[in-house]
């Protein structure tokens, strides 16, 4: 049987339950016990979904209340000096690192850690801060508590942990810059201790994430991999599944294959032919996890095409072939079933996290029991893909024609900047050092309420527009009183700078519940571009007031 698994699962909960619990806790309206209970429920739901889909191993350790990089820092005692003094629970300290304060009136309020983008995604992680003489300690209890809870399911599990080199790569020196690799040896001792604890707790397989293998790495960092995994291989358990994702392995492929780990995971969606090349270099006792189900997008997979690609690998590797998501499913919405208003023609083209679990299960059965064992599921996937390819919804001949007719000068203003500038200054009547703002003004409670009422159909279009015009007039008056030179309309009508336009353009759709974690409790609802994009009519003009504003 082919083992199936995912690298991670959405952790915001159904209907963003964790977001609302976190925000209630931060406002002081929910106590810690209730928040922890909500966390347990989200984990239980993650595991239940994987169990229900019949995955070979259920993934444990990918949950985090705020961020998994923060949790890795806490696991190894990487807590900046300014948070060391604060009293309270471990969770309160974690929230101080994430947001500056745990709850209103927190006497230990201080400057939060920096947030930055996780590789090329729109997820943000908290940057760990390292001292030049950083000491690492181990606090594995939060991780192990979840592991023990998952053991109660009585099913095969797999743990997840961020790897030591990616952790160091993502961290930054707290003060004067220094070579972070100088901290590798002490960090490895702490990792070894964690592995020992995990092994003792019954962790057989541990997915250890090293996505920096998809980057252009300096030689010193490449060399450090052999040292790091040589040291971690000394532990008798757990077996390590070294996971690379997001980028092509390219020159790091030989490096990956040289490491003494029990298995490797390859992103087969973004990795080009990495999958086949890694299979060629695999040692006889190693597992290869093929990351075939896309963790970065929402399209239903071409299962038949994947089976064509996987069949020769399965013939060679047998049970040593695992099937997984390309990366964590953190980056896709939870469940297509929650959508009630999707165009029935488009719905079958999509797969959110929950549907992707089923896709993995179908692929695994097709490999082990033959395609006829899942003929119905494969036929449905084939039909959906064929319908999508043939659908007039995806192609707008007028758009294609216009694009084909573009000339190079269409991407150029008529005059160069030095000639435009005096024309613009004269028109705007601007003096030196003009003052302005970036575009948006406070989204007051009244504005948010009006948008929600309008969306729910409880506020009529006319009343809504009048309300928004009034907000704009108020913002303009305030700017005039302040003496700003270039005014903005303040964007009261914009829920989000992408979703707003996504809802107005043909070829794009906005879901009801397609939320994805951006950082902490902040979620975004990315629109889906399913076809050629066309503007059916003006999107911003009717609300924008005239002259000297943008």
């Amino acid at each position: 049987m082919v083992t199936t698994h995912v690298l991670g699962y959405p952790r915001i909960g159904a209907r963003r339950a964790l977001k609302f619990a976190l925000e209630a806790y931060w406002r002081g309206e929910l106590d810690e016990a209730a928040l922890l209970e909500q966390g347990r429920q989200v984990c239980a739901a993650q595991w239940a979904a994987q169990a229900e889909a019949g995955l070979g191993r259920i993934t444990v350790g990918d949950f985090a209340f705020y961020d998994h990089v923060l949790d890795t820092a806490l696991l190894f005692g990487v807590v900046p000096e300014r948070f060391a003094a604060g009293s309270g629970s471990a969770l309160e300290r974690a929230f101080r690192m994430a947001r500056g304060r745990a709850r209103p009136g927190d006497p230990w309020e201080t400057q939060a850690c920096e947030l930055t983008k996780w590789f090329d995604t729109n997820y943000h992680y908290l940057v760990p801060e390292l001292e030049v003489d950083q000491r690492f300690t181990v606090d594995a209890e939060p991780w192990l508590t979840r592991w023990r809870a998952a053991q109660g399911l009585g099913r095969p599990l797999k743990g997840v942990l961020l790897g030591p080199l990616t952790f160091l790569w993502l961290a930054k020196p707290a003060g004067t810059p220094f070579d972070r690799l100088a901290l590798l040896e002490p960090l490895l001792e702490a990792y070894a201790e964690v592995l020992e604890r995990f092994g003792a707790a019954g962790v057989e397989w541990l997915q250890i994430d090293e996505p920096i293998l998809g980057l252009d790495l300096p030689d010193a960092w490449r060399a450090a991999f052999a040292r790091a995994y040589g040291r971690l291989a000394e532990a008798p358990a757990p077996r390590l599944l070294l996971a690379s994702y997001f980028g092509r392995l390219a020159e790091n492929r030989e490096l990956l294959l040289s490491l003494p780990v029990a298995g490797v995971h390859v992103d087969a969606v973004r990795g080009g032919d990495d999958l086949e090349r890694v299979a060629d270099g695999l040692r006889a006792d190693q597992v290869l996890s093929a990351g075939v189900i896309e963790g970065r997008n929402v399209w239903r997979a071409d299962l038949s095409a994947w089976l064509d690609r996987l069949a020769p690998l399965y013939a060679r590797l047998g049970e040593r072939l695992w099937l997984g998501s390309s990366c964590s499913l953190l980056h896709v919405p939870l469940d297509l079933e929650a959508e009630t208003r999707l165009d029935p023609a488009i719905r079958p083209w999509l797969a959110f996290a929950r549907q992707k679990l089923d896709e993995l299960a179908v692929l695994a059965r097709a490999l082990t029991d033959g395609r006829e064992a899942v003929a119905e599921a494969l036929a449905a996937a084939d039909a959906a893909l064929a319908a999508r390819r043939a659908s007039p919804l995806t192609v707008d001949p007028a758009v294609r024609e216009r694009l084909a007719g573009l000339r190079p000068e269409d991407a150029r203003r008529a005059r160069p900047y030095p000639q435009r500038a005096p024309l613009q200054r004269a028109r705007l009547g601007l003096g030196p050092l003009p003052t302005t703002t970036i575009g948006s003004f406070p989204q007051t409670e009244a504005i948010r309420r009006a948008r929600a009422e309008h969306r729910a159909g409880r506020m009529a279009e006319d009343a809504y527009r009048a309300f928004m015009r009034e907000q704009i007039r108020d913002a303009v008056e305030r700017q005039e009183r302040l003496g700003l030179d270039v005014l903005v309309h303040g964007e009261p009508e914009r829920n989000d700078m992408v979703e707003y336009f996504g809802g107005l353009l043909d070829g794009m759709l906005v879901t009801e519940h397609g939320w994805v974690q951006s950082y902490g409790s902040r979620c975004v609802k990315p629109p889906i571009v399913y076809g050629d994009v066309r503007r059916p009519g003006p999107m911003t003009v009717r609300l924008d007031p005239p002259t000297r504003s943008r």
Partner: protein
Amino acid sequence: MLTGPVTLQQWSFVRDDLPRAEVARQLALCLRDEVADLEAAGIAVIQIDEPALREGLPLREADRPAYLEWAVQAFRLAAGGAADETQIHTHMCYSEFNDIIEHIAALDADVITIETSRSRMELLAAFEAFEYPNEIGPGVYDIHSPRVPTVEEMVELLLAAAARIPPQRLWVNPDCGLKTRSWEEVEPALANMVAAARIVREKLGLVRPAAAPA
């Protein structure tokens, strides 16, 4: 205020049956038409934001030139239809763009406002190494903090910016949009910002605008 073609697709789930460059061009045409409608309605300044331009940069160096080429072209296609008298602004909310500053210049926006609050030194260094040809508004206060910035600190920052960027191409603005703040925080902060701009105009011996309201 429009969201640029690169950001619209970077923050969407994009179809996998058409190259991303093509999707960006389609989005650019939609925005180009919106720019034309805004101009027709009498709008003289149009901002097209590209906060995700940097984050879309491919992980591997070898893939970057192709991305930057189509990303810059998409922005230019969105803005390129604007009349010369229309001022195109763009905003970038990150500071790590030393490595792509030439491509940001290639966007050819008339004015770029940038988030400089957290790493001012690094950012201004980029402008020393590469002379940005158009107008720049380095954010003079951090909107992510509820603290109201003082006139003095903003004067100091503006003078520091004016030492690196010719004052005739310098704008005065906060470092990001103000939607997450309250009016109680925004109004005193902006009043201080306007006051700081007046002081710096005088200190630098620049002519004050005739019709600035009190």
